[in-house]
């Protein structure tokens, strides 16, 4: 097969990109900078400065950072333990951790709702033990819990992968040259897993920043994230122009966060490419 014929094979994907990524993106840009009569405006963009929109964006950033930090704190030691396990079928254990990802996202959220509800499984269990009930449903706490639950595997996997590439003889060489365990961690393990950490951060922070389903289901409409504002504009208010404007703003924040993390290291896990 010659080169031009080979390039034809990319055709279906090219059509897909144009039809489902490029065109919608252009449409969003068009809507963002126009009014309903088609005249140019910046109002849809500047709408972010309104009190309601701005506090929603701030809350999104806040919860996104919180969720990312919690995921990192949970995932790093876990990846280390997984990697250090002296068992034959390590990949099976990793598979177990990844298993929930294969279940439908909404289904899992509904399950959490049942667990956390006022008369839900958790509280029934606490009551039978004679313990005070928890009412975290419809709070930011429930939203963060849902986010961490959903996005944790995206933090574990790249860190675990980068850890698996650290050769045992590098650790031994460091030890041989006089390094104790703390020095080995700081000078060898941490720098060599940095690319995995950065991928994990991007893969968790970006979807948590833009999520709206989690806050809707576990926040019960009381936790308003920027994603929820945009969703309301599109679905309930039919305000495509306002929604597009906020989408552009959010996109800029996503790009800024990715550029920031990109500064700290080369991305080798393909994390950014995924989102």
């Amino acid at each position: 097969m010659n080169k031009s014929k080979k390039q034809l094979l990319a055709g279906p994907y090219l059509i897909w990109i144009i039809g489902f990524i490029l065109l919608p993106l252009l449409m969003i840009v068009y809507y963002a900078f126009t009014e309903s009569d088609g005249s140019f405006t910046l109002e849809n963009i500047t709408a972010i400065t309104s009190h309601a929109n701005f506090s929603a964006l701030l809350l999104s950033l806040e919860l996104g950072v919180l969720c990312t930090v919690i995921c990192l704190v949970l995932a790093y030691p876990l990846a280390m333990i997984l990697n250090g396990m002296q068992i034959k079928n390590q990949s099976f254990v990793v598979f177990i951790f990844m298993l929930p990802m294969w279940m439908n996202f909404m289904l899992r959220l509904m399950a959490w709702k049942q667990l956390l509800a006022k008369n839900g499984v958790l509280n029934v269990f606490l009551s039978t033990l004679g313990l005070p009930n928890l009412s975290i449903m419809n709070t930011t706490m429930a939203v963060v819990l849902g986010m961490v639950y959903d996005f944790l595997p995206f933090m574990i996997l790249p860190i675990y992968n980068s850890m698996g590439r650290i050769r045992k003889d590098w650790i031994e060489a460091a030890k041989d040259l006089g390094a104790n365990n703390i020095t080995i961690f700081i000078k060898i393990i941490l720098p060599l897993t940095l690319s995995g950490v950065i991928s994990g951060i991007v893969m968790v922070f970006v979807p948590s920043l833009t999520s709206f389903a989690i806050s809707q289901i576990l926040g019960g409409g009381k936790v308003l994230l920027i994603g929820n504002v945009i969703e309301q504009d599109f679905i309930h208010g039919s305000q495509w122009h306002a929604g597009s404007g906020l989408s552009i703003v959010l996109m800029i924040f996503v790009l800024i966060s990715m550029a920031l993390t990109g500064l700290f290291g080369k991305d080798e896990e393909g994390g950014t490419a995924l989102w």
Partner: protein
Amino acid sequence: MKKAHFNGLKRKTNEKGSYKKMKKNLIEFIDISKSYNGSLVLDEFNLYVRENEFVTLLGPSGCGKTTTLRLLGGFEKPDSGKILFDSKDITNLPANERKLNTVFQKYSLFPHMTIAENIAFGLKISKKSKAYIDDKIKYALKLVNLEGFENRSVDSLSGGQQQRIAIARAIVNEPKVLLLDEPLGALDLKLRQNMQYELMRLKEELGITFVYVTHDQEEALTMSDTIVVMNQGYIQQIGTPEDIYNEPKNAFVADFIGHSNILDGIMIEDRLVEILGVKMPCVDEGFGQNCPVDVVIRPEDVKLVEPGEGQMEGDITSIIFKGVHYEYDVMANGYEWLVHTTKYVPVNTHVGINVTPFNIQIMHKPESSDEEVVEIDE
């Protein structure tokens, strides 16, 4: 039985270099045993290494040589026994507190650091000043002939260059002992020979003790002051390269050090051995009468002569040109003799074989199954 065997392996005192004043023992392995998953790798292993000595642990894979080195480096703990370093017990001292450095088989340079950072790693940990570290890096790179490589990445170096950096990274810490685990195994022949000379030069210049692990007998013969031939967790022989080559203690050593003709023989009486039905004069004594023995004859010691003039006769079955000499297979008295000679004789020629008494090595048969000769495929 085993104890007695080890006592029989005490080193001779007239070692090469004994004209220098007697050096003290720097490292001592005392009754070290080690097993992995139930299989014994080292069994009551005893060895000492003198200061400024180049000791090579030589043997086939699985003989316990790498385990010995890892025990010394502190990466493994023995099941029993002690390791002394400078007369102090270091058996339970962690690797990072031992005053020795290792050059690993796979180089093991840190991939996220430059060459200079790799070399500086140990010095930074021991909190040396920046000026001192910079000096040392320069000095070490010069020593391994890689000046100006400070800011190169590990990836951009060839295998040989990486190995030299690994050596530089180890020696800047001025260890008392340098451990080398088959460091030249991955290099091609020419580079390997160059590195051998460089290592010998380093030893002379730095005056440190080398413990070198290899399965390459040529490498061992070239570089070592003392060779320790090991097999299946036991020391087979300790000696200078000359001792090991010229007077192998048993058939295993003879077979492992160079290609040899190893035959079953019967010691008829002092200075007379029967091989393949032929009585041949030799120089060994003290085996008693009609004692079964192993006989080792080096291929370069077998002379091809006219038929009728030799001790036995046979036909040349194959001939390979090896550069310096020809390698012949000669079928005589039911044994295929390996012969090295510079003389050319065509295939299928009927020839005589002669061996001078001095070149016939007589050895006791292995005492126990542990020491039986194993096939080495090379």
